[in-house]
C-alpha cells in the first residue's frame, strides 16, 4: 500500500573565478567553468534523465509521478548555457505528472541569517515557477533540507504552503519511521514529509558500490523492499540529488535501466502507487508530532550544519556576507544585489569545509578549489571588492543628492 514519492534536487552554483586581492574588476564568476560544467552535467544527466522520465510518464499513462526542486541559479544557468534543458522540463511540466517545489532562489542559508532575505528569495523562486511552468508550489524544501521547529513555524506563517520536506534523521524519529506524514509541534495545518534516507541512499550513493552486500541492485529487488513496508507506512519518500542519474552514478552502472524498470515492478503490487508530495499530503493523515528543536540537514553522516558552519572560516564568511545585506540593499543597484545574492549560495561555504579534506571525500564534487583555504581566500577577496563597490555607489548617490 505505500506510495512512492520521488523528489529530485537540481542545483548548480555560480562558481567564482580566481580572484586575488589585486583584482579590481566586478566580474566575480567563472563564466567558462560554469558553462562547461553546466553543459557537461546536462549531457550526462539532465537531458537523458528528463527524456527518460518523459518516456516513463507516457508509458505508464499518468501512474508514474515525480517532483523537482530546481534552484533559481541553476535555471539561470540553463537559460544561459543550455536552454534545451529548460524545454525538456517544459515537456515534463505539461504531462501534469510533475510537481515543482519551492525553495530559496539562490540555494542559500538565509533562514539562519536573515528572515527578510529568506522571504524575498522564496517569493522570487515561487514567481519563477509560476512564470516557467504555471505552477504555484505548495510544498517547501529548505536548502540542503535544513530544518527545525522554527523553520516550520516560519513557513506556516507565510500561509502559502501545505508541507515542508526534510531529512528523516534517526534522532528526530526515535522509534518511529519516516514512512508517514507528520506534523511539527507548533503548527496547525503545516505537515512534514520525511526522507527515507536508507532507501534513498541505496539509489543515490550505494547503487554502484561493489563492496555493498546488496550489489547489484535491480528493480525487482528494490520493489521487494518497497513491498515489505506494507502496513508499516503510507509513503516512501525517495529524495535525492538529480545528478544521481548519470553523474554520481554513471550511465554504465545501469542506473537509467534501473529507473526505467522500477515502476513496472512497483506497480505489480496493486496496493502500490506513485504520488507527488502534494498528493501524499492530501491522501494521508498526520500520524504524530515530530519535534525538532535542533537544526538538522541531509548532509554527510552528521546530518547537521557542520558542512557549512564547521570551522572559523565558514562562520566568518557567512557572518561577513550577511552583515552586508543592509549596505547592499541601500544601494538599490540591481547588479550589486544580484552579485551579492549569488554569493549567498551555500556551495561557497561548503567548499570551505575542512571536515573531510584530509580524506579527500564527497566534498570534491565539482569543487573548483584545490583546498578549503583557497576557497575562503577567494571568497573574502570577492566580498571585499563588493563592499567597496557598495560604498562607492552610496557616496556617489549622496554627492548627486547634495548637488540637486
Amino acid at each position, binding site marked *: 500500500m505505500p506510495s512512492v514519492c520521488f523528489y529530485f534536487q537540481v542545483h548548480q552554483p555560480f562558481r567564482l573565478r580566481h580572484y586575488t586581492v589585486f583584482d579590481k574588476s566586478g566580474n566575480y564568476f567563472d563564466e567558462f567553468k560554469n558553462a562547461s560544467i553546466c553543459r557537461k552535467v546536462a549531457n550526462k544527466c539532465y537531458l537523458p534523465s528528463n527524456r527518460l522520465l518523459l518516456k516513463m510518464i507516457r508509458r505508464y499513462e499518468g501512474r508514474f509521478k515525480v517532483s523537482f526542486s530546481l534552484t533559481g541559479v541553476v535555471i539561470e544557468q540553463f537559460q544561459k548555457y543550455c536552454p534545451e534543458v529548460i524545454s525538456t522540463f517544459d515537456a515534463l511540466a505539461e504531462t501534469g505528472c510533475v510537481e515543482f517545489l519551492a525553495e530559496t532562489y539562490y540555494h542559500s542559508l538565509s533562514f539562519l541569517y536573515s528572515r527578510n532575505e529568506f522571504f524575498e528569495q522564496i517569493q522570487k523562486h515561487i514567481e519563477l515557477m509560476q512564470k516557467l511552468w504555471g505552477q504555484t508550489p505548495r510544498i517547501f524544501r529548505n536548502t540542503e533540507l535544513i530544518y527545525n521547529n522554527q523553520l516550520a513555524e516560519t513557513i506556516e506563517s507565510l500561509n502559502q504552503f501545505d508541507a515542508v520536506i526534510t531529512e528523516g534523521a534517526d534522532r528526530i524519529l526515535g522509534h518511529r519511521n519516516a514512512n508517514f506524514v507528520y506534523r511539527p509541534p507548533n503548527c496547525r495545518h503545516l505537515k512534514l514529509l520525511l526522507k527515507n534516507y536508507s532507501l534513498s541512499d541505496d539509489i543515490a550513493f550505494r547503487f554502484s558500490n561493489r563492496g555493498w552486500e546488496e550489489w547489484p541492485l535491480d528493480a525487482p529487488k528494490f520493489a521487494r523492499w518497497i513491498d515489505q513496508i506494507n502496513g508499516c507506512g503510507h509513503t516512501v519518500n525517495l529524495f535525492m540529488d538529480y545528478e544521481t542519474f548519470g553523474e554520481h552514478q554513471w550511465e554504465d552502472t545501469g542506473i537509467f535501466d534501473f529507473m526505467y524498470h522500477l515502476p513496472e515492478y512497483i506497480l505489480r503490487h496493486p496496493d502500490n502507487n506513485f504520488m507527488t508530495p502534494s498528493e501524499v499530503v492530501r491522501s494521508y493523515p498526520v500520524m504524530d508530532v515530530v519535534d525538532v528543536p535542533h537544526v538538522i540537514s541531509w548532509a554527510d553522516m552528521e546530518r547537521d550544519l557542520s558542512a557549512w558552519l564547521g570551522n572559523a572560516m565558514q562562520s566568518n564568511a557567512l557572518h561577513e556576507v550577511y552583515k552586508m545585506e543592509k549596505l547592499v540593499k541601500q544601494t538599490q543597484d540591481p547588479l550589486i544585489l544580484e552579485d551579492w545574492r549569488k554569493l549567498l549560495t551555500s556551495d561557497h561555504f561548503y567548499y570551505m569545509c575542512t571536515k573531510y579534506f584530509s580524506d579527500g571525500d564527497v566534498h570534491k564534487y565539482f569543487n573548483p578549489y584545490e583546498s*578549503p*583555504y583557497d576557497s575562503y581566500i577567494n571568497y573574502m577577496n570577492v566580498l571585499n571588492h563588493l563592499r567597496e563597490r557598495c560604498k562607492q555607489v552610496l557616496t556617489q548617490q549622496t554627492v548627486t543628492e547634495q548637488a540637486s
Partner: protein
Amino acid sequence: MKVFMLGWEFPPYISGGLGTACHGLTKALSDLGVKITFVLPKPIETKTPTHVQMLTPQHCRALRTVTQSAETTQELKNVQFHTVSSPLQPYTTPQQYQKRLEEIIRQKQLLSAQSQQMLDQWLEQEIEGISVGPGQYSGDMYTEVHRYAAAAVRLALQQDFDVIHAHDWMTYPAGIAVAAVSGKPLVVHVHSTEFDRSGEHVNQMIYDIERRGVHAAAKVIAVSYLTRNILMTRYGALGDKIEVIYNGVEPEDSNRISAQQVGIRSDEKIVLFLGRITMQKGPEYFLMAARKVLEEMENVKFVMAGSGDMMHRIIEMAAQMGIGHKVLFTGFLRGEDVNRVYQMADLYVMPSVSEPFGIAPLEALNHDVPVIISKQSGVAEVLTHVLKVDFWDIQEMANKIIAVLKYPPLQMTLREHGNFEVRKLKWSGAAKKCLKVYQEVTQVAV
C-alpha cells in the same frame, strides 16, 4: 638488525635539513631496537662544540668510537657514533670547500698543540690526496669523498652489520666501497639531488656519484614522489627499486611568546623565510612577493633567516626594490634562536624552486605558525592544511600572504588543523618503513 649508517651531519652541528632528518630517523630506529653504527665526517674548523666533535681524535687517521654525552646516549641508546675528520659539509661547493680549507690554515696558529698536530697530519694527507687525485676542477672535494670512503671501509672491517645505509651523495662512494668489501646490501637514501641544488647547472662529478650510488644500491629511499620522479627521469633508476619514505617531525610543546617580549610592535605582522639563501630555496621570489604585499598593506615585516651564496645578492635586491627597511636578515640561526623566530612569526613561507622534502614547514606547524609552501616541494605531498603556490606565481603568493595576515579565521583554521596534521607525521612511522626496507634487502641477500 644492525645498520652501518653513513651520514654527513648530525645535530646540533647542522647546516640544513639533512642533519635533522638523520637525527630523527636514527632515534626512531633506535627505539625500534635497530643497532646503528653512524659514521660521519667531523667538521674540524667549527667553534661550536657538539657531542660528536667535542672529543678530539688522537690521530686524524684514527677512527674511534665516540662516547656520547649522557643525555644523547639515553635518546639514541642503540646508536654508536664514529667520526672521520674532514672539512666536508653538506650543501657545499668546491669554491666554498677551498675557502674553508684556507680558513683552517689561517686558524692553524690559534689551535692547541694537539689539534695542530692533528691538522698538520690531516693537511699532509690532504695534499697527498690532491696530488694523487684526478686533478680536475673539484679534485679536492672528490678526494675528500674518497678519503671518507676509505676510512669508512677500514671502520667497516672491524664492525658487524647486516645492511649499509648511506645518506646523500657524499657518502655513496663510501657505501659502494663498504658494500663491495662486506658483501652486505646497500640502501641509498636520497634527501636531495644535484638537480634540486643546482637547477640545470649540475656539477657533473656530483651527478656521476649520485647516479652510481642509485644504481649500485639494492634499494633506494626517496624522501618524496617528487624526488622519486627525478631519480627515474634523470638518473634512469627503476621505479620499483625506489621506496618513498617521508620525513617526520617530533612534536614539541612550544609556548608562544608574545611579540612584545622580543621588542616587535604588536601591530606589525611578521612573515618568515627560513632556509639557506640559495637558488634552490627561491629567496628572490619571496622578495618579489614581499614587494607586492607591501603595495597593499603597511604594517608587515619580512624576516629572512639563513645564509647562503645568494645572501649578498638578495640584500642588494631588497635595497633596489626599495623595501630594504621592511626586510630583515638574521643570518644563520640555530637552537633557541630558531624557536624564537618561529614564535615571532605570523606566517612561514617556503618558496623553494625545488625541494625534495622540506622539514622546515613541519617545524613551523609544530610551532603553531601557518605555512605557505611551493607546490614544487615534496612536503606538499603530505600536508593538506597549508597553503600551496607555484614558486614563480608571485601574485598568488602575495595574495595568500595578505589573506593570512588579513583574515584571522584563516590563520586560526590553518593553525588548528595544521598542528593536528603534523602530529601524525612522526619519525616512528618513517623508521618502521625503513626497517621494512632493511628486511627486504637482507632477505634478498640471504
